[in-house]
């Protein structure tokens, strides 16, 4: 018996993104900066607009019709996110501002239970968002940060990782997929090794959630964080998944309305998760937008999207094959569709500026990962990151524009 391989219809998906028809500098926009933030399908735009135009009130507070409708829509978004990551319960899905706030929440709440000398393991390839919140604990409480080194191909040194683990390890916080290298880390192995020393694991899924199916139960991960805006949803909304017992053990992060059980002037009790961590009026419209993004994504086969994105990456690699002026950073086996590079004789800033003139949007700089830049001996790199709406023709145009850009500096 054989199964037909699911085909991803890029033109059909692409038609949902109004912005992709615009021109930049007189050229059709080729948007290769989705790793920084993805464009939004009209279904997300309309869901947010409808929520504001037809059914809007504060959530969890009122008893009137609009309050009930909005609360339902907000909680339906939480259920959509639960489905996306296969969490056992909606109570394990906390809405935050984004991956950055999710990590800050865990770090500051968990940090209250740590003492000087306790260790937190992160990696050298982390985004600053997964370094600085832990650094606060180092600066303020004498927590020790241990860094997993990165090998030359952009993969983690797993032997070194195992050697870092011990009885003092109180948390392992690593990225599921590097925003610079595209490396997809062996998270199952990372989690198993951490659990063997009773340390919880937080995965930064900001990139990984976009490019493949994530199952938090299969991973047995303790905390999983991501942002809405990279997942074709709006800015200002993100997710913290935490195992029920892990979230229950965390003290609140911010105080305010909605996160309490009861309040007297002397004594305050806190609500159970997830509401304990959602103080104040949440980003209601943004949560509804994220829910719409997840529902929109559910029409596609995630593996087919990944295959399409991989084909884009391979097309670019093939097109640039033999270019002796090009250095790629990050070549780990099984890496995702992120292409970080430098052009000999030019700064990444130069390359990005020239590419922009050809309508191609890429990122240039340190990608909020300065330790990683230093590890590879560069001060910056350019990065093309691919999304489901990019086409093979765009990959070809990018290659042609990059060859022309290089010509400016040769």
């Amino acid at each position, binding site marked *: 018996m054989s199964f037909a391989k699911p085909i991803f219809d890029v033109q059909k998906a692409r038609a949902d993104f109004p912005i992709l028809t615009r021109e930049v500098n007189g050229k059709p926009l080729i948007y290769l900066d989705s790793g920084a933030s993805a464009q939004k399908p009209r279904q997300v735009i309309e869901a947010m607009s409808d929520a504001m135009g037809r059914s809007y009130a504060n959530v969890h507070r009122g008893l009137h019709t609009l309050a009930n409708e909005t609360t339902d829509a907000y909680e339906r978004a939480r259920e959509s996110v639960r489905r996306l990551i296969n969490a056992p319960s909606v109570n394990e899905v906390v809405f935050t501002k984004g991956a950055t706030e999710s990590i800050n929440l865990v770090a500051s709440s968990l940090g209250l239970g740590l003492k000087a000398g306790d260790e937190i393991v992160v990696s050298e390839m982390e985004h600053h968002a997964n370094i600085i919140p832990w650094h606060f604990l180092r600066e303020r409480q004498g927590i020790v940060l241990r860094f997993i080194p990165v090998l030359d191909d952009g993969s983690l040194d797993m032997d070194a990782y195992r050697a870092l683990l011990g009885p003092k390890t109180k948390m392992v916080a690593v990225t599921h997929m590097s925003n610079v290298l595209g490396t997809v880390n062996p998270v199952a192995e990372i989690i198993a090794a951490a659990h063997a020393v009773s340390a919880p694991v937080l995965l930064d899924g900001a990139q990984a959630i976009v490019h493949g199916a994530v199952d938090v139960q299969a991973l047995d991960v303790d905390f999983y964080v991501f942002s809405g805006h990279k997942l074709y949803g709006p800015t200002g909304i993100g997710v913290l998944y935490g195992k029920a017992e892990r979230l229950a053990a965390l003290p609140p992060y911010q105080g305010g309305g909605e996160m309490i059980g009861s309040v007297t002037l002397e004594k305050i009790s806190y609500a159970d998760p997830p509401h304990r961590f959602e103080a104040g009026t949440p980003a209601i419209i943004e949560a509804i937008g994220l829910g719409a993004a997840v529902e929109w994504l559910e029409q596609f086969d995630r593996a087919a999207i990944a295959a399409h994105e991989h084909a884009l990456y391979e097309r670019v690699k093939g097109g640039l094959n033999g270019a002796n002026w090009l250095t790629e950073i990050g070549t780990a086996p099984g890496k995702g569709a992120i292409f970080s590079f430098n052009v000999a004789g030019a*700064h990444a*800033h*130069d390359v990005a*500026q*020239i590419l922009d003139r050809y309508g191609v949007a890429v990122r*240039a700089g340190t990608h909020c990962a300065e330790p990683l830049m230093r590890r590879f001996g560069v001060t910056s790199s350019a990065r093309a990151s691919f999304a489901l709406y990019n086409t093979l023709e765009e990959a070809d145009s990018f290659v042609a524009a990059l060859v022309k850009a290089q010509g*400016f*500096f040769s």
Partner: protein
Amino acid sequence: MSATMTQELQDLAAEFDLMGDWEERYRYVIDLGRELEPLSDVERSESNKVRGCASQVWLVTEAGPDGTLVFRGDSDAHIVRGLIAIVVRLYSGRAPDEIMAFDPRAAFDKLGLAGALSTQRSNGLFSMIERIRRDAMAVQAASN
């Protein structure tokens, strides 16, 4: 006394008017950057660094004759270096009053390089002109 900033801008605009398309303009900017005297390693210091994100920019301010200010700058990116060369040509050796009266945005518009002065923090050039103006203002304040 050399030409005024406005005259210098006219000269630059005449040079840029000779260019056909944006590609030629950018090539010219890159060439201007190549001709710019680089700063020494010592001058590429943390205190001379201008805030930027994508590329690094350095600015050295020195006192010139008759109360003028002399500026020298550098960057690790070619296009930014070329833009710095233009900034130096316009601003260096001028009196603080002339510097403060000059409109940098209008100038870069005139050269067809409007996008170059975007306020994005990734672009250190805007911060560089801000620092030039701050230094000029400090000299103005001290002489009043």
